[in-house]
């Protein structure tokens, strides 16, 4: 990993979350200068402070996901918070960041929970936010590819990103192929993000990599 991102500038949204800390550490270990995004609700200032950004990682706020509850009991405020705000924050950041991403060669990585692909009883709005972000990332990969920009998604286990919440439903009938500790190995996810952020992943865009120790294997 050493030197993989030497001389690169990385902006990390959600740098204070558990996954954000792991990603930031891995990017630094790979040689990048890492800047945490100040506020996800007003990302333009963070982008504007960096004339050129080689790597942008959007970690989200998945650590803030609340306990599962029946969808039919949600009020509009709760649906807006769980679904709409996370998606709008990603859109706002991509919108602000386009002018600042290094072209060609700039790399975007969006981190979502696998719950968006698997579905999650009691967390439908969160699953919707995750899948909306994933489809947005694919779409942006299609739009920005001609600029030499790549956009990829890393899907991680929600419980690993939000260790404080309980009662999360199992994603798969099968146990993690690599064993339970691999599911929550945020350091390993961070190193995967570093590889995706590097020139080693130049063939990849619009892809989703499930970094959950071998739970979600569809399709």
């Amino acid at each position, binding site marked *: 990993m050493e030197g993989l991102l030497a001389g690169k500038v990385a902006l990390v949204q959600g740098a204070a979350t558990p996954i954000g800390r792991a990603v930031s550490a891995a990017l630094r270990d790979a040689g990048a200068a890492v800047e945490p995004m100040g506020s996800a609700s007003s990302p333009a200032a963070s982008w504007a402070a960096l004339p050129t950004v080689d790597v942008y990682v959007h970690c989200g706020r998945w650590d803030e996901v609340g306990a599962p509850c*029946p*969808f*039919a009991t949600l009020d509009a405020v709760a649906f807006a918070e769980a679904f709409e705000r996370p998606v709008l924050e990603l*859109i706002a950041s991509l919108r602000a960041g386009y002018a600042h991403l290094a072209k060609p060669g700039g790399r975007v990585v969006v981190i979502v929970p696998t719950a968006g692909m698997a579905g999650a*009883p009691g967390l439908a709005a969160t*699953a919707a936010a995750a899948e*909306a972000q*994933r489809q947005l990332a694919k779409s942006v990969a299609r739009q920005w590819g001609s600029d030499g920009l790549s956009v990829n998604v890393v899907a991680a286990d929600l419980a690993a990103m939000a260790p404080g919440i309980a009662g999360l439903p199992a994603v798969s009938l099968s146990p993690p192929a690599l064993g339970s500790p691999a599911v929550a190995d945020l350091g390993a996810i961070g190193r995967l993000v570093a590889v995706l952020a590097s020139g080693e992943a130049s063939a990849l865009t619009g892809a989703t990599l499930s970094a959950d120790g071998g739970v979600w294997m569809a399709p």
Partner: protein
Amino acid sequence: MSTLEGRTAIVTGGGQGVGAGIAIALAAAGSAVVIAARRVETGEPVASAIRDAGGVAVCIETDVSDGAAVQATVDATVARFGGLDIVVHNAYKPTRAHRVEDVDTDEIWTPNAGTAAWGTFYCARAAYPHLRDAGAKGRLILLSSPAGIEGSATRPVYAAVKGAQRAIAKSLAKEWGPDGITVNCIAPVAESPALATAFAADPALRDAVASRTALRRIGDPARDIGPVAVWLAGDGAAYVTGQTIVCDGGSFMGL
């Protein structure tokens, strides 16, 4: 074919395109149908045509991005027909093509999310107690899109909200499964207002879309999509839930 005899369905956006095709097909299969249309002038002719063909249908003006309006339509449906078995949420307000760096929240996000995502939330929330009462006959069917599976080079926000619907369907399939309710998506490529908007903006797109299908044609709402909704709504699909049925003439074959 009267596979849905005695059942009651709401079809949002039932006044045109795919929604109209589904409403007509459900009615032909024996279901009473409420056309929940934003404009009565489009919804009522479909309801009238169903009645003229011997079916049971009414139109109720409904803006699916308004939670109170959706609740009122569900309440009126239950009051009129004594229950609610099937909800098909198809209503969607198309927007212009856009790049993500140009997305204006009011112009692009609000119509897309308001109809597809918020509309799904409001329909699911209002319908759930009645679908639960319907038990193994309870159905929620969401009209998603292939763009919600593979992204869209021209409409990223559309892809996002259509993907959101698929995740909600999977989640509610698990959440409501113990009640016997099934929740599925249909991802069509068919003559619809949304596609018409895209074709108007880019006339070459029609041939491009048609030629990408294995069947070399764009689907017809009543003939190609309606029967799939009838199947999902009927007893034959009682063990199918959390799925997206891609009805696109063989364009997308990702699974």
